[in-house]
């Protein structure tokens, strides 16, 4: 039994209405943008729905868009409905000044380390996470390295001029 993008959107907009902000289908994968407040609830609906069955959390990560003021950080999840063989991308935006979003650890055991990694690199506070610590970087690091303001190399170096070679 296959499901379609329309079916998913219809179900979600019936429940969440205004909270679903946008949807698109870049390169053949349905992408839904929604307000961060409904993050956990929306994923729970997708997981527990009898026909949709998005019971597999493929991936969770974040992206930093520093120019998008007020909604700088995007939290992106990829869900997979194994039974319907349907992949879905979920995105919600939070602000850099208050990077807080609900944790998915109650829904998926595997979200634990994925969220720890996202916290480690982007400083996102996953509320309700049982053990939100750094995972790959050293514990005493006092910044979140994947944010765009941190350069890869020491910016005071003069021997490497990348002006002509892009960023």
């Amino acid at each position, binding site marked *: 039994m296959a499901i379609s993008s329309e079916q998913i959107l219809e179900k979600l907009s019936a429940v969440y209405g205004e909270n679903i902000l946008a949807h698109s289908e870049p390169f053949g994968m349905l992408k839904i943008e929604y307000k961060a407040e409904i993050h956990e609830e929306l994923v729970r609906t997708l997981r527990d729905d009898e026909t949709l069955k998005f019971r597999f959390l493929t991936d969770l990560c974040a992206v930093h868009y520093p120019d998008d003021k007020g909604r700088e950080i995007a939290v992106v999840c990829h869900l997979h409905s194994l039974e319907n063989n349907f992949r879905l991308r979920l995105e919600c935006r939070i602000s850099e000044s208050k990077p807080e979003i609900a944790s998915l650890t109650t829904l998926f055991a*595997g979200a634990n380390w994925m969220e720890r990694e996202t916290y480690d690199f982007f400083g996102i506070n996953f509320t309700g996470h049982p053990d939100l610590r750094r995972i790959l970087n050293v514990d005493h690091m006092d910044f979140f390295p994947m944010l765009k303001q941190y350069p890869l190399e020491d910016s005071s170096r003069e021997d490497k001029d990348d002006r002509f070679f892009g960023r």
Partner: protein
Amino acid sequence: MTEQSIYGEDHIKEEEKQYNTLNLGPTHPATHGVFQNVLQMDGEIIMSAEPTIGYIHRAFEKLAEHRPFYQVTPITDRLNYCSAPINNMGWHMTVEKLLQVETPKRVDYMRIIVMELSRIADHLICNSVLGVDAGALTGFTYVFQWRERIYDIFEQMCGARLTTNIGRIGGFERDFSPKVIEMIRAFLKEFPAHFNEFEGLLLRNRIFMDRIIGVGPISAERALSYSFTGHNLRAAGVDYDVRVMNPYSSYQDFDFIIPVGTSGDTFDRFCVRQEEIRQSLKIITQALDNLPEGKFVADCPEFYLPPKKDVYNSMEALIWHFKIVMGEVDLPSGEVYHSVEGGNGEVGYYLISDGGRTPYRLHFRRPCFIYYQAYPEMISGQMLSDAILTMSSMNVIAGELDA
């Protein structure tokens, strides 16, 4: 009959018990990589484990944001270095998806040959080293020479063995030479006999079987909740394989089966990998027999680095070379997720391009980072020696774990 403690009447109560703390790793010879686990032990029994990872973290995602697309390939080598070509191919296909480049059938088939060869190498290491950890060293020496043969084939194809950086965006840097075909044919002919011997050495070995049956099990439900993929998920009984679910690189043309286990224990994981090696051999044979004629590269001069010979001799190739290297080519913007069935699970690439020279953001879905978090759950209540076997049977690769 009343139950009596073996420690007699004065046996301490559960809440007063004190456990021993044992530091397993980071550089324990039995863990094959930099893994640290702080174990709470009740005698020989593990009560809980606390893994610490990140010892060889190399900031690949940050690095990738500062490198042109074709220079990201060597980074992917160093994720799962036991099956580097699969990672390379996965990355090339991700970029091709973004660029909407159609590859010729010959490229697809060539890629499948390379990927399946590296899957065999990956599984051979994992299974033979599992034997070593259980004390059966002989099997390892039987098959390790065959891994060498696979690396010889890679060397003949691209000049490198372990971190191969094989292929390019759009296809391959050169066609398979007759020597390569000959080497693969010889491998297909000679390997199965030795492989069967290897399997007989372990699966007809009572001690080995006793050590691995029922060790480190996980249920299908828990495995799915932990986002397991690859042989670990299949050993638990879920027939999820990216090659079948979302066929890439013309996998739909091939006839092969997906082996599944039932209990998700070390024995099932071992058997699933053994069978996968046989299926990979079948796939390679089919690909080689039906290898289509044609070009070994897609028609995309704006992204494919031209051969050096042409750069020096043809104006057009020189222009493209210059444009690609200097980042003068316009890349499409957008976001794309592509995944391939790697040596140990679904290797995913989440690429966001803003049209710039380098990825705006690149996230690697690293299968063993995701399933290694289930390790404490899988080993608690087991013996210390079982923990070693569980880890080596899960095919956790430090490079991929720590990115």
